[in-house]
């Protein structure tokens, strides 16, 4: 922490500690969480259709998994503040729970572990590196946490090779959807001009 007197919240970014959250950072991270919490309604519906189909095509549904991890990667990629991954994913999970997620309160637990795992990866870089490999590793870490969580809560009895195949499908989906997808979304948003005042 610097000793600069942090002015009123939202003072010019240059004048304050770079790890301090401006009001704008909070609101943008939160609204990304809210937007994805709503998008999860669609994703949950798609999952509900695909998951029972796993009898015919095993594990295809897991290729959607990265969609749930996007807030944990996209929000930190935009605001670049400590805690953004966890905050965005928790807000998304909370909104999802309030909109009657088919996972009930477990979505909060999922959101917590997914956000925390991505957060750890960004913390290891001291929130300084935002290259594609770091983003991809964060996405995979988030998927790994989700994989373990789902193992304990929903799939405790699967054969080991199926667990591993499930993990590979999730990691692949995380890299493609949460990793490259978030990077592409951040690029689109930057081009649209709404990220003025955020680091790039």
């Amino acid at each position, binding site marked *: 922490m610097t000793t600069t007197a942090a002015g009123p919240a939202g003072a010019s970014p240059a004048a304050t500690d770079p790890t301090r959250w401006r009001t704008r950072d909070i609101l943008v991270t939160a609204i990304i969480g809210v937007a994805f919490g709503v998008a999860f309604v669609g994703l949950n519906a798609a999952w509900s259709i695909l998951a029972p189909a796993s009898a015919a095509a095993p594990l295809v549904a897991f290729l959607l998994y990265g969609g749930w991890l996007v807030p944990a990667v996209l929000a930190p990629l935009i605001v670049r503040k400590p805690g953004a991954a966890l905050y965005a994913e928790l807000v998304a999970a909370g909104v999802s729970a309030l909109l009657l997620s088919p996972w009930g309160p477990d979505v909060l637990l999922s959101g917590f572990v997914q956000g925390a795992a991505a957060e750890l990866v960004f913390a290891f870089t001291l929130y300084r590196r935002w290259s594609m490999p770091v983003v991809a590793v964060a996405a995979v870490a988030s998927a790994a946490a989700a994989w373990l969580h789902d193992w304990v809560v929903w799939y405790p009895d699967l054969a080991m090779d199926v667990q591993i195949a499930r993990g590979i499908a999730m990691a692949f989906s995380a890299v493609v959807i949460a990793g490259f997808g978030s990077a592409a979304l951040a690029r689109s*948003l930057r081009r649209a001009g709404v990220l003025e005042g955020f680091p790039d």
Partner: protein
Amino acid sequence: MLTPADIGVAQAGSLLGQTSPLVKLGLALAWLIGLLFTLDPGPPAILALAAILAGLTLGGIPPSRLAQAFAPLSAVALGVGLANLLFSASNADPAATELARVGPLRLTTEAALIAGGLAARVFAIVSVGAVFAQTTDPARLVDALVQQGRAPARFAYGALAAYQALPRLADDLATIRQARRIRGLRGGWHPRLFVSLLVRAIRHADQLALAMDARAFGSGPRSTFRPISWGWRDLAVGAGGLAVLGAALLR
């Protein structure tokens, strides 16, 4: 779908509606964690029934509202049950009793029992979530998180402000889709829609942040508009919920 479910007056004034959201959240997580210790279908079935009965009587939720939550559930319960049935480790165990053989897959009684227990687990967890969501006002949840749970106020109220922008995002989505139709693009769903919506959402977040800063949001100690304090209901619901959990698990 995009507009948050309003909590009716009956639900807000009911025993569960007046209980601190923090107690309900704690109980929901306690039941969830308790359920992880059993693969037997009995305890989740008891807990699901208890949650539904509590929601209908103590929570004042109209049965039709509660039923809405169970539509997507059946598919998810089926998905989880089926995955555990088809890919269970005990299917490969030669000592397990064979129940049926579907093509190359051998299904065993052991796997079917566990799959049934896990589908019941989905059912129980969703029941708890539905009762929680339909008796809890989001603003009250955030008040409780800040005042009773010591959550950081700026982040909690920031999230609430963003959440309350939801109806506006729904309006934005309608506008964006109309604009696409006027330009002669197909009216259905397209990934660009989501990007456009995120652009609008971030603009909206910027305006909200500016307005909140102008009112000195998070700049120091504030008084509270809706004070929440612990009461007898919290103790009663908390103790009752834990007792039901204990009874279901140790039955």
